[in-house]
């Protein structure tokens, strides 16, 4: 179970986001909806331990991640969290398999990679360099890399953003299927995909306040 409690995040550009408390139950899939810039990706990054909240805390199975060091959060992320980044975060000069096998550096077993690539329909590209792939193919490589370690938590930031609806739907189905009994939190704009998730969260409702703290205005709702 993931609990987001009293989390605020202030950025260097002086924007501050204050989240309402949210709880994500283990084994359920969540779809986060909301306008661009309302703090969906920031929330995923805070849960993943990539960025730290300015205040508040994220508890995963009762453990306050803010009390852990960056090194411990990194270890937790690589072992327990499968993160599908919006811009893929793949090394362009390396092959599909190498981008997945990079996890071997931390002792993660990636033997399942060929099967996952097969399921995602890009098995024939396994030895191709990332720079030679289309946006949709890169997206599927990023998904395969996130799922290959059989994570407890899957975080997906716009996993269908670069795919047409048909393929996007297929990917979401696979993602949901692969994340069965795990916690899946996916950010997407496409409401048509909401039927595949256990729960849809409108992030516009989950932001308590968003403001430019030195600006003239008060709180701005997403």
């Amino acid at each position: 179970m993931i609990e987001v409690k009293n989390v605020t995040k202030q950025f260097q550009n002086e924007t501050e986001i204050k989240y309402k408390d949210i709880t994500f139950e283990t084994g359920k899939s969540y779809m986060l909806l909301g306008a661009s810039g309302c703090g969906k990706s920031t929330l995923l990054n805070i849960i993943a331990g990539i960025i730290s909240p300015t205040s508040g805390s994220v508890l995963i199975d009762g453990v306050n991640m803010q009390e852990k060091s960056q090194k411990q959060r990194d270890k937790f992320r690589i072992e327990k969290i499968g993160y599908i980044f919006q811009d893929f975060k793949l090394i362009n000069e390396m092959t599909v398999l190498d981008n997945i096998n990079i996890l071997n550096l931390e002792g993660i077993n990636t033997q399942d990679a060929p099967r996952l690539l097969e399921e995602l329909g890009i098995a024939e590209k396994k030895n191709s360099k990332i720079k030679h792939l289309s946006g949709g193919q890169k997206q599927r490589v990023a998904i395969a890399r996130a799922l290959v370690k059989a994570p407890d938590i899957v975080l997906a930031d716009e996993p269908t953003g670069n795919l047409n609806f048909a393929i996007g739907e297929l990917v979401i189905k696979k993602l949901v299927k692969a994340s069965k009994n795990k916690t899946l939190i996916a950010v997407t704009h496409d409401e048509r995909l909401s039927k595949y998730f256990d729960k849809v969260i409108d992030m516009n409702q989950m932001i308590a306040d968003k403001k430019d703290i030195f600006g003239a205005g008060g709180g701005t709702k997403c």
Partner: protein
Amino acid sequence: MLRFALKNMAVKKIQIILVALSIVISAGIGVLAFNVSSQVSDGITSNAGYYSLIIGPSGSKTQLAMNTMYFTDEPLGTIPYSVVSTLSKDGMRVNSVIPFAMADNYNGYGVVGTSPEFLKDKELREGSLFDSSKTLEAVVGYNVAKYNGLKIGDVLHTSHSSTGLDTHEQGIKVVGILKESHSSFDNVVFTQIQTLWQVHTHEGEEGHKTVCAILVNAKNPGYALQLLNEYDGKIVTHDDETFTLQAIEPMDAVRDVLNDADDTKYIVFVLCAVILVMNIMIISIITLLNMYHSSKEISLMRLIGISMKKINLLYIIQNGIIGFVSILLAFGVSRLCLLMMNDYVSSMGVVLNLGLVYPLEIVILVGVFIISILPTAIWTLVMSKRDSIS
């Protein structure tokens, strides 16, 4: 880790080639300069202590010493053999007297006429020394035999010119082949002094019994000094011809040569040091630029959860492989250059030993290796101090 490091290197071929090239150039030049200067210096001094004095025609001291001990340069001229006879009779002050004459060549290799005693400290690979009571026998140096396919019993014909024209009719039989000594002895044909006189005497003529130099071993340093004073500037007459002698101390002459060479050596060392420093800077800049360009890759790895420790290790392994392979290449290139320089250096009387590695060469190679991985280590250390990923 190693497999991934190699794969990661494979995608950065140009940067890696640039770094490797800089390392090969800097380490190669450093090692080569030190090795050549040391071998030349060691080679020149190694022969100098054998004799108390050298007596020859008047002229350049250096030329007399270099020609007699290292078979380089042209002989200064000739002096009568009667001087050898006189010295040989001086049993009170003299231990040994060795005549030396250099004339002709065999396929470009010098031919020296002398007595067997000249080769007494040299080891034979096969055969025996020539017999002083006979003529037309030769002991050939290791390279002479190797590059001319000479065996014991073969007969060689010497000639006046290096082009092989003007060959003497009388053949000289090979009776011995010297072991490889990595000295100028490897490149010379040795025969009896009488053989040289014989091949140069035309039928019906009486040959002039002359030598180019006389190597003398005195019984003690005092006698050596006496003989030096006695023979230096001495005028002797033979067959109505007048000869002015000079006597030199071999170590003195060699010291003069080395002093001259030292100035050149220092200039070479300074130039090498400048090249080395410039290359170290280039290595550091290229490596730091590579690391800078890898920042995105490093951030990406950090985002997916790979620890800074593993990333550090990955880049240090990568640069370690590049550094290690490059210093091996640098060593190989330096040996290749030594091989190519051998012809030139052998004209100075020193045969370079490709297998000779000085401890300082290892220090240079290890130093360059450390310098090649230092920028990476510093960069990764700085990166790892930053706890935050974003």
